[in-house]
């Protein structure tokens, strides 16, 4: 502050000072000097103004507060120049009222600075009187309260935000001040327990006593653990609500620690998850029931499988016995009949006939047994699944059949046959039987005609056929020809075991296909075979 600190307000027109006054003035000035220093050093801005509001003197803090470089920029200017236009009249009125001796409180106002920054100041005006008690001016103390105002503003916004969250969230909120043991339970929290805000006191008791006895310990342990290890906090527990029932709740929480690392506060949310729990319990129950049901089904199935395995093993034993033990005696009968015949060179025609009958009969029996075994084995053995070129197999089979039927007049009409998925050996058996059948049943024809071709195929299956102009049969027996050991002709007419078509059908079935026949007595027969383009399970 400049010396002299306060210039006598000469323009007021007071008398010049008497010597005694000068002394008093100097004496006072000397006495006031430490005070002047204090004022100059003060953190608060101090402005000396006259009655017009013109600044007469300022301290450093005032220069800084008003964002000026030196006191010269302020002295001689009106104090209101530094105020925002909207605050000017209020500040002016306040200052004038003070100067007029009115006892009014301090004024807080916002100040626009030359830099565009805004600061908050607290204004305190003290009237300065002359020796006659007449006001000559005032001392304005400016306190920078920007930081306080901003803190207050931040707090207000934070409170607003918290209030907004409290209103908007569907979760209940709780807040526990660990140092004071104060508890806050939000209205929504209480609502979830069935209470209005005023019906439930904000006490820890209102949480702990409502916890389900089974959940009590682990919830409190989870809190302790979170506050100790600062791990994330999420627990599920049951609380007794107003009706006395327990509801399931889920709570997320977060602790707050002081600089010493001691927990001082913990807050969190509360959500009712009863519906979710019940749904998942229901699902669990459903899964349990289904699993039990499945286990029962499996047990039944396992029993059936076991039964089937037993039957299969028995069947295997039977076929084994047939293969080994039943074929042998037939061989002996045939063999020894032939050996006997050799030793009896001079027997009569009838005896020769008898021996021939015996030999032929057992031989036929052997053929039947072999066919039956083939049928059983083919039905049971593992199937291969590869690309099978039917056309290739047909050429080979037809050549063999044609060779065997040498001397007969057979016209072969062979169209192109598709490739299919399946077991090549089994499909060869099918073609062999169908082609041999065609050759066999056209025997009485002077000119036989056997046609193979493709027909009626769709995107799912291929259909091919074997047609002959042979003796045919009555369609009313068509369903019987695929049965084991069933024949539509007497063995004397056509040789065979009566198993071929049953085997053919079994193989086609195992390929997921179908076989059917169209025939008429004396007008030949056509066997159709439909095979899926993709074999089942393939």
């Amino acid at each position, binding site marked *: 502050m400049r010396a002299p600190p306060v210039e006598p307000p000469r323009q007021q027109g007071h008398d010049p000072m008497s010597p005694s006054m000068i002394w008093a003035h100097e004496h006072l000035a000397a006495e006031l000097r430490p005070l002047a220093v204090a004022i100059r050093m003060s953190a608060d801005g101090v402005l000396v103004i006259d009655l017009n509001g013109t600044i007469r003197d300022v301290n450093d803090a005032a220069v800084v507060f008003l964002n000026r470089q030196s006191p010269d920029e302020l002295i001689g200017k009106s104090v209101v120049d530094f105020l925002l236009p909207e605050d000017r009249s209020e500040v002016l009125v306040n200052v004038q009222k003070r100067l007029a001796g009115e006892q009014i409180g301090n004024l807080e106002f916002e100040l626009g600075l030359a830099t565009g920054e805004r600061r908050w100041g607290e204004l305190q005006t003290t009237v300065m009187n002359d020796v006659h008690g007449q006001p000559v001016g005032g001392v304005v103390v400016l306190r920078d309260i920007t930081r306080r105002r901003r803190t207050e503003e931040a707090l207000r916004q934070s409170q607003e935000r918290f209030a907004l969250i409290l209103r908007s969230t569907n979760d209940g909120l709780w807040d526990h001040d660990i140092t004071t043991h104060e508890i806050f339970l939000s209205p929504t929290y209480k609502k979830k327990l069935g209470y209005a805000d005023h019906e439930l006191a904000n006490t820890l008791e209102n949480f702990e006593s409502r916890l389900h006895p089974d959940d009590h310990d682990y919830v409190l342990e989870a809190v302790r653990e979170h506050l100790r290890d600062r791990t994330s906090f999420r627990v599920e527990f049951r609380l007794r609500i107003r009706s006395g029932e327990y509801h399931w709740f889920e709570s997320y929480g977060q602790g707050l620690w002081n600089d010493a690392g001691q927990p001082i506060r913990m807050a969190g949310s509360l959500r009712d998850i009863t519906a979710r729990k019940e749904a998942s319990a229901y699902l669990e129950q459903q899964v349990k029931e289904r699993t039990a049901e499945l286990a029962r089904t499996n047990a039944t199935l396992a029993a059936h499988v076991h039964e089937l395995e037993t039957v299969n093993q028995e069947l295997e034993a039977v*076929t*084994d016995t047939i*293969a*080994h*033990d039943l*074929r*042998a005696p*037939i*061989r*002996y009968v*045939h*063999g*020894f*009949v*032939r*050996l006997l015949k050799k030793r009896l060179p001079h027997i009569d025609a009838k005896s020769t006939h008898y021996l021939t009958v015996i*030999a032929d009969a*057992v*031989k036929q029996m*052997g*053929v039947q047994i*072999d066919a039956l*075994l083939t049928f059983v*084995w083919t039905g049971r*053995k593992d199937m291969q699944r590869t690309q099978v070129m039917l056309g290739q197999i047909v050429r080979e089979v037809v050549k063999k059949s044609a060779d065997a039927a040498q001397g007969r007049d057979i016209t072969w009409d062979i169209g192109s046959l598709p490739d299919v998925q399946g077991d090549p050996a089994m499909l060869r058996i099918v073609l062999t039987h169908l082609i041999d059948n065609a050759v066999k049943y056209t025997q009485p024809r002077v000119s036989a005609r056997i046609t193979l071709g493709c027909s009626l195929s769709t995107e799912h299956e291929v259909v091919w056929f074997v047609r002959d102009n042979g003796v045919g049969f009555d369609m009313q027996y068509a369903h019987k020809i695929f049965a084991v050991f069933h024949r539509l002709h007497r063995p004397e007419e056509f040789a065979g075991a009566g198993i071929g078509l049953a085997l053919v059908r079994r193989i086609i079935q195992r390929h997921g296909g179908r076989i059917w026949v169209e025939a008429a007595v004396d007008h030949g027969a056509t066997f159709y075979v439909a095979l899926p383009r993709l074999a089942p399970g393939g």
Partner: protein
Amino acid sequence: MSHTQHMLLVEDNQNDVELMLAVLEEFPFANEVVVALDGAEALDYLFRREQFATRSEDLPCVVLLDIKMPKVNGFEVLKQIRTDAQLRWLPVVMLTSSRAERDIMESYALGANAYVVKPVDFDEYVEMVKDIGRFWGRRNEPPLSTAGPGGETSGPINSPTVRH
């Protein structure tokens, strides 16, 4: 081609033995056919045990082995032949009534050299015996250790004999 060699027929059924010998009487392919009536006897013969302890060291040119036999079956005999250092290369032809796939696969898995199904038809049976005799008794060169010393004979040439 040596005519000193003999065949071992392992067959439990007398009828089968008789049929086989009846055919071989007409078409002899080995100077001797030794018959073992079950697997145990076959093993005794091959390993020169019991009643065969003093037999000559000659090994048969081929073993015709039935599968289904009492005591030790054909598979077991084959297994023991294949695990013995002396016998492991011995030609073994399975000769059986069964053409069950399981039997066929099991035989080859155990190291059979061939698998022949005895035909029901006697004419075919005769053909089969002739095929086996021609091939295994004459055409095939047995492993060296199974061939007897050249020129030596242990029985009448071209006249099969039966031993039990």
